[in-house]
């Protein structure tokens, strides 16, 4: 081996956490930070694709989003937001504690953060299981359950009950009859024998008649504003709220391709959920090392970097919540 000169550091001076190719702990720390920020940039761009899909589809089919988001429980979404924000606090505090040599406090806070992650995942589990039970899945698997026990009316999850009430239409009964007759033939609707009508690609008669009444070219979707002037309805001005509510409670009046919303919903929250799990794994790893006393004021880099990752997971949720749950 070539003889080392004084310019190259002798091994004895280096603390164990300082890697040989770095000159100082400061250099190693700031390098690690920059590396983590670059990695976070890649995560932002990974989710960018999903936000793009969301934006494009919501832009071209707002009615799908407006209709379908009612199936999400705002309260659970808000709860998850609060959980993640609080866990961000405990995480930032844990980093602070590590910086100040408060080992036990740091460990406790990391454990609390983990708990927050578990809470988040539990809420998501509840949400997902409700949707799966109700048949609100993606793509061709979208088959919303109807009838007494299959609740698709919004707000039932807020009520948190297993028993559901049959939806009550508020429009003119004749219109409801006419709509029901047409609706019975719509893809996805439950036919008289209880089997869903198979999906076909024939033009939608309800949409076509509405479009014709408004003198528009046959289009693929219905703008929500058009619903206010539905040809078959009670006379006089009808409050928009009522119509919208009735439409939602009446599954036959759902816009086409509602599954697009759910596809995007599962993709976004699913990928986010995977990142929550990965973040929790990283926190658990750092927790273990904290308990073993490997971090302190001289070296707390891994805690800091894992913290940054966890905050990113929170950041993404901050945008997911209003975009998915609070559309109006």
């Amino acid at each position: 081996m070539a003889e080392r000169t004084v310019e190259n550091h002798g091994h004895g001076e280096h603390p164990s956490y300082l890697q040989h190719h770095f000159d100082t702990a400061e250099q190693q720390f700031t390098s690690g930070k920059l590396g983590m920020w670059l990695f976070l940039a890649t995560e932002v761009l990974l989710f960018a694709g999903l936000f793009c899909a969301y934006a494009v589809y919501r832009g071209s089919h707002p009615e799908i989003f407006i209709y379908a988001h009612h199936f999400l429980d705002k309260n659970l979404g808000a709860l998850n937001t609060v959980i993640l924000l609080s866990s961000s606090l405990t995480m930032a505090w844990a980093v602070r504690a590590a910086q100040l040599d408060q080992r036990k406090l740091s460990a406790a806070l990391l454990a609390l953060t983990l708990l927050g992650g578990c809470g988040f995942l539990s809420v998501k589990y509840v949400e997902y299981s409700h949707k799966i039970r109700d048949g609100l899945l993606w793509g061709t698997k979208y088959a919303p359950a109807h009838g007494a026990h299959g609740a698709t009316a919004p707000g039932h999850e807020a009520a948190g009950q297993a028993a559901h009430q049959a939806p009550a239409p508020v429009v003119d009964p004749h219109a409801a009859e006419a709509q029901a007759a047409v609706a019975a033939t719509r893809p996805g609707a439950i036919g008289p024998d209880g089997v869903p009508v198979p999906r076909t690609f024939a033009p939608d008669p309800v949409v076509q008649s509405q479009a014709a009444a408004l003198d528009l070219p046959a289009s693929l979707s219905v703008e929500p504003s058009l619903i206010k002037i539905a040809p078959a309805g009670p006379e006089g001005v009808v409050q928009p709220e009522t119509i919208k509510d009735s439409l939602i409670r009446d599954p036959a009046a759902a816009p086409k391709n509602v599954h697009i919303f759910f596809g995007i919903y599962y993709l976004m929250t699913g990928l986010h959920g995977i990142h929550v799990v990965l973040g929790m794994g990283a926190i658990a790893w750092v927790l273990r090392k904290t308990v073993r006393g490997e971090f302190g004021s001289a070296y707390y880099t891994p805690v800091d970097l894992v913290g940054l990752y966890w905050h990113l997971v929170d950041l993404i949720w901050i945008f997911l919540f209003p975009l998915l749950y609070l559309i109006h």
Partner: protein
Amino acid sequence: MSTSETLTGSRPLRAPGAGHESDNYLNHSKGILSWIFTLDHKRIGVLYLVSILSSFFVAGMLAMLIRTELLFPGRQLVSPDAYNQLFTLHGAIMIFLFIIPGIPAALGNFVLPLMLGAKDVAFPRLNLLSWWLWLSGAFLAVVSILLGSVDTGWTFYTPYSTTTSTAVVSMVSGVFILGFSSIFTGLNFIVTIHKLRPKGMTWFRMPLMLWALYATALIQVLATPVLGITLLLLIMERVMGIGIFDSRLGGDPVLFQHFFWFYSHPAVYIMILPAMGVISELISVFSRKHIFGYRFIAFSSVAIAAFGFLVWGHHMFTSGQSDLITVIFSALTFSVSIPSAIKVFNWLATMYKGRIQLDTPMVYALSFIVLFSIGGLTGLFLGALATDVHLHDTYFVVAHFHYVMFGGTVIAFLGGLHYWWPKMTGRMYNESLGRVAALLIFLGFNVTFFTQFVMGSHGMPRRYFDYLPQFTIYHQISTLGSYLMAIGFFLCGAYLVHSLYRGEAAPANPWGANSLEWHTPSPPPHDNFEHTPEAGDPYDFTDWTYDPAIRGYVAKSRTSH
């Protein structure tokens, strides 16, 4: 000292000034595990080099098959479906396994810390992980081939890729993993260049190779994740039937193209920027003249990276993109040629009144300038909407991108490989054979691909298994050229491998360059430098004089080793 007969005559096997056998990075530790688990950036560079050259060989053989199939109209060797698989695999392997890792991973990994006078990259374990991810991606690609391969074209366009029964998921998963390999390499390089520069090496005293690698790394980090999500969505579409790209379910197939090209256009700048970095080094060193317009070249590298993000729609002019967006992308496409042109002017100005030395690396560098210029200029025909409508999906496009990717990147890669070969291996290759091979490759390349410009402008579509009789002569000329090229490559491989066993020992600085990697023995010791070098102007060659005894350059200011 022992002597031996080599191709160039009797030469000492151990020249003074060369690295001693006992203490360089190659023999620092022994055994295959010491390589597979190495944290040494130089070894990782060598591992990558072997990996990507193997991929290049496989994909090159596929190309030979394709060209042979196209010798005559109708079926010669393979069925139409198999032909589709051939060009898909050729493209996917060349792009994701060879050229994207390419210069950064194989040459950059080796050279970057040395140029910085550093001991390693910022994150050596991440570097190793990058290579393991490359292997995993390659493994999945092999799995895909065994499961029936893919025939979608390397672009995986929907709706075919979501509905075909071929092994799309395994191939796309492999590419997904390769994407992370690329991201981690880029991340590593950015942090290394920011943090591990020595005292005295400001941003504008770095070798231009590092500016090029830095700009490349920026693209790798920012663009590749979008490919990741695209491929993930494709997999979800196939496996779970989400319907996001399926028009029957209200989805949009063209959205896939937006997603795909948002990465894949910047990706071509990942391919060309490091190549340009190599050329900046070669032109200056082999003209024995300071690089002209250093800041222009440095800024143009970053400009190319930035502009590269703005032009992805030019791959979609005929896909049903809106008129407004199409025009915007066309205009932006013209602007991206400007920084590239600036570089070419600066290289030419560097050569002007220099003392040109036509060593093999310089032959490649000069080839690059010619071929890249042709490739770049033909891009203008494709960027202009009126002509693109006729040229899209013809052989004109195929010729264009081969001129820039092959005539550009691969030629520069070969130049860099020959330039740094003595440093990496401690051996000199046979110079005469080097020039012969370079000439064969240059000639063969032009015969192969210039013909395709003509063919394409006459309407011959790309990715076609069969063709009309009037195109036969063009295909035959093109195929002949490819055989010529192949001979050149085999010759190159032969003398390089030969040099490993019987090559003359290389001096520390065979070319008289001044960047820091030449201030350490060939091959370098495990820790790169015995004495941490002082950062100077990397293009100031005045300190070095040629010493015939060692067939290399020695520094006037320092006593001999």
